[in-house]
């Protein structure tokens, strides 16, 4: 079949539209959802198609509206909430964690909360300390929440469709730098499992498990390293909860080495969890100490010059992997040069002009 290349933003829009068409109980709600700019293009046209009873702006009251969406879900609707920045979800941790995550359990299954919340991780163009947080580890900590982190457009669509078809709260962590990337996306509505990591590139020297946008950087690093004979197996984790450590363990049993790349701070985070799980389960198979890539231990600054070093990327990961494996014969300067991100580095693509 011919490839159908669309952006992740469009894939998300399409999933939403198709699910809303098939299920009249779905409501779309978020600050800016009906705006002309439509949440980075992910909600464009939906107000026009489904009308103001189903496509809904919301007051700036994240905790209240989350509670309201939980109530609507109990009442038989399927709310799909959107936060333009994941940071804003810090205002509704209470309702998400105390209620949405626990409602089914604490009432022993007497009720369920089919609520889907999209949260977009901001990066670049000076998002800064309060607009660039990547909070998957926080939410994934809590039993009762399902936390998806699609990297590809194909996954984003399939996972959103799956989320909108199942019966418990799902958080979909999007990354602003993935919205513009294109991918082969089937036209029809299809669900992909909200579980399971996937090997995106096979390799035999090291397993590099990555989440969300870091999959893009991991694949670039693997490609460059391959030219120097280092074959990195890249795994797209896809989910922060449930975390599929088994696929990673199986890979590590082949490669003997593990590195994990996350978009967030490391301390008490997803990358450490995966390292721990692999060390518990594949102790005998690991031939090297594990390696983690994540943000340095301070909030994200605004100035582009400061962000250059802040975010791990293909270049820094490839170099670190070489050093870690103590491989010889690699021209690190050349490797580095080949992977150097084009300027300006604070935008996902050279021609990117927002919205931010």
């Amino acid at each position, binding site marked *: 079949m011919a490839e159908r290349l669309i952006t992740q933003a469009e894939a998300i829009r399409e999933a939403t539209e198709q699910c809303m068409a098939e299920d009249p109980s779905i409501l779309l709600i978020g600050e800016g959802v009906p705006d002309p700019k439509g949440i980075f293009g992910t909600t464009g046209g939906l107000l026009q198609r489904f009308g103001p009873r189903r496509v809904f702006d919301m007051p700036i*009251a994240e905790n209240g509206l989350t509670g309201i969406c939980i109530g609507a879900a109990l*009442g038989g609707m399927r709310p799909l909430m959107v936060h333009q920045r994941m940071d804003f979800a810090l205002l509704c941790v*209470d309702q998400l964690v105390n209620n949405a995550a626990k409602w089914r359990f*604490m009432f022993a299954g007497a009720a369920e909360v089919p609520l889907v919340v999209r949260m977009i991780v901001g990066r670049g163009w000076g998002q800064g300390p309060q607009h660039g947080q990547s909070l998957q580890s926080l939410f994934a900590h809590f039993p009762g929440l399902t936390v998806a982190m699609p990297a590809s457009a194909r996954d984003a669509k399939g996972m959103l469709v799956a989320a909108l078809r199942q019966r418990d709260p799902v958080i979909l962590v999007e990354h602003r730098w993935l919205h513009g990337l294109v991918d082969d996306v089937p036209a029809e509505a299809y669900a992909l499992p909200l579980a399971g990591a996937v090997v995106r590139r096979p390799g035999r020297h090291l397993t590099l498990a990555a989440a969300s946008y870091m999959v893009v950087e991991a694949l670039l690093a693997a490609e460059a390293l391959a030219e120097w004979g280092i074959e990195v197996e890249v795994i797209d984790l896809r989910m922060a909860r449930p975390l599929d450590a088994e696929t990673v363990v199986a890979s590590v049993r082949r490669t003997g080495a593990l590195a994990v790349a996350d978009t967030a701070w490391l301390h008490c985070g997803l990358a450490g969890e995966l390292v721990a799980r692999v060390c518990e389960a594949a102790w005998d198979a690991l031939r090297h100490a594990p390696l983690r890539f994540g943000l340095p231990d301070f909030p994200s600054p605004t100035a582009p010059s400061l962000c250059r070093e802040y975010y791990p990327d293909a270049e820094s990961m490839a170099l670190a992997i070489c050093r870690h494996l103590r491989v010889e014969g690699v021209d690190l300067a050349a490797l580095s040069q080949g992977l150097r991100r084009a300027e300006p580095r604070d935008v996902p693509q050279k021609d990117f002009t927002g919205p931010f």
Partner: protein
Amino acid sequence: MRSEARTDLPASRRRYREMLRIRRLEEAIARRYTEWEMRCPVHLCIGQEAIAVGVCEALRRDDQVFSGHRAHGHYLAKGGAMTPMLAEMYGRATGCCGGIGGSMHLIDRAAGFMGAVPIVAATIPIAVGAAWAAALKGDERVVAVFFGDGAFEEGVVHESIAFAVLHRLPVLFVCENNHYACQTPLGTRRGSAMHAVAAAQGCQVVTGDGNDVDFVAAAAARAAASARVGEGPWFLEFETYRWLEHCGPNDDDGLGYRPAGELAAWQARCPLAAQARALRAAGVAEDWFAAVEAELTAEIEAAFAAARAAPLPDYARMEGLVHG
């Protein structure tokens, strides 16, 4: 708004009976609590029964109620089944939450009691959302949420009220103003009247004596009828008083956080005693009172017996309850 004439004798009797049912059950819980077999925090509502009964009378069975930590009265008044509630407090498999919740988590969906949880104010937006769903689906359903004067301090209440007003949702915000949050008096926590804020937010408002069950019932009936036909949310603030300690089975007046005599003054305004006087004045005979007491004693004893006889929950089931 004044109390309606106490002419509807069957209604008055029913209200008295419902209040007494709650009172007697709460008293039984308090009595048995010190056997240390109900091993969970309990927040008793003795003294506050009229609000639960008056409001729930205005609701249909398929109307919905949400509540918080002090939920026993609301649960029973809405028709929640007694034995599963007690079994829940005894941590049994037959509890309304399978033993997972204890006194602070109650649910009986068949009766329209949609859930109570102990995070203060947590169910207020959830109730608004349930009303929103009802409105979107065209159900003629009213949703009531009970909360205390303390809960009004949470910002989420204001977010919830504003949304309900904007979308004219069929919600009754029922504020049981018992003048204290734990041991803290209202006056040290806020400097304006709650109902005035709700009115400014655009709610229709009733305030008055929460120990007068006829007044509560009339106010709630009017509010429910109005909300049901799409006239938007109501804020009902009823004054009342908690007789026992905030959490637990005891009188705690000795702690000294309430002015001397305050409890006694409110006990003199006991919602049941007032109703009993009115019934007697209207000619209801002592036999009837005795019969009601006997019926309730039997029901309560049976419920305790059933709850205590029930099996313990199965730990192995727990993990499977997280997801559907």
